[in-house]
């Protein structure tokens, strides 16, 4: 989607509730997904997703001045809300996996499910030990499937900086997992 498309969508959303509903439909899953893996519980993920879209709605007028893609703008709003959430709560996230509504991937590889439930848990726990920027990078990369350039737009860094941060993040994650006795090679 080009910036021109974004501008057209935003202009339409300012005037037409249906156009804003289209924007919502386009991004709600991605924003929820991003927030879920940053806060690790369904209740707060829903709350912060709602806040993200309300904030987007109330700041629609200022969107044009920012010069970044709409998706990056939404991710930044979500990022700020998540950062505030962590600061206000001053706590480490708690996993509530039983409440998860996972996309139907597991049925494709049943043996993976059996062998990797623990690995997944360890990986997520390891990720949570990293600093927030690294956690954000991993979520954007793996959960959202974004490129380094797209991640750079969201995190306000260059593509090269993201590449470098990614390399360091994987090393740090390996170290964390090694501490737990999980060696993924």
């Amino acid at each position, binding site marked *: *989607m080009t910036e021109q498309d974004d501008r057209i969508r935003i202009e339409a*959303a300012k*005037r037409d*509730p249906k156009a*804003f*509903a*289209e*924007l*919502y*439909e*386009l991004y*709600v*899953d991605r924003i*929820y*997904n991003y927030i*879920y*893996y940053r806060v690790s519980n*369904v*209740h707060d*993920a*829903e*709350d912060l*997703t*709602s*806040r993200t*879209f*309300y*904030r987007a*709605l*109330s700041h629609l007028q200022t969107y044009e001045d920012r010069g970044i893609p709409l998706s990056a703008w939404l991710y930044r709003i979500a990022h700020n809300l998540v950062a505030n959430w962590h600061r206000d709560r001053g706590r480490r996230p708690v996993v509530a996996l039983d409440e*998860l*509504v*996972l*996309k139907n*991937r597991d049925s*494709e*590889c049943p*043996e*993976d499910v059996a062998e*990797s439930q623990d*690995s*997944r848990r360890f*990986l*997520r726990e390891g*990720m949570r030990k990293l600093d927030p920027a690294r956690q954000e990078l*991993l*979520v954007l*990369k*793996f*959960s959202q*499937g974004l490129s380094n350039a797209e991640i750079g737009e969201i995190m306000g860094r260059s593509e090269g900086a993201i590449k470098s941060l990614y390399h360091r993040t*994987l090393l740090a*994650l*390996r170290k964390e*997992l090694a501490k737990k006795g999980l060696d*993924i*090679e």
Partner: protein
Amino acid sequence: MAHTQEAPRRAWCRVRDLLSCLVHRLQGAEPLSRNSQSPDPLESAMRIALCPVVPSSSFREALRRNLSFAVQGRMLGLSVEYAKPFRQGIILGVSAGLLAAAIAALVVVFRWRLSNSEG
């Protein structure tokens, strides 16, 4: 329109997930030797660990409805505010209820004392 644009992304995610699964399984059976082209096992594992999640349909619908009201309100010149979350609403409601009960109890005691002193 939203659905038509979301569909390719979902399809791509699905293909990517399937490929990731396939590589994982082939590596397990060792027919595919790891070389510089094969994905890092840690990356594959992270992709699986951070598999996509979707919000519940009830949440999606409720938020869509509320946002729609908010957009309409905004067009009428009303300010857009996020409603207090359910949990905070419960706490506020219970607090208000307790306060009302305490005031009612005080009034009853006060009246009872007043009637006793008059009697």
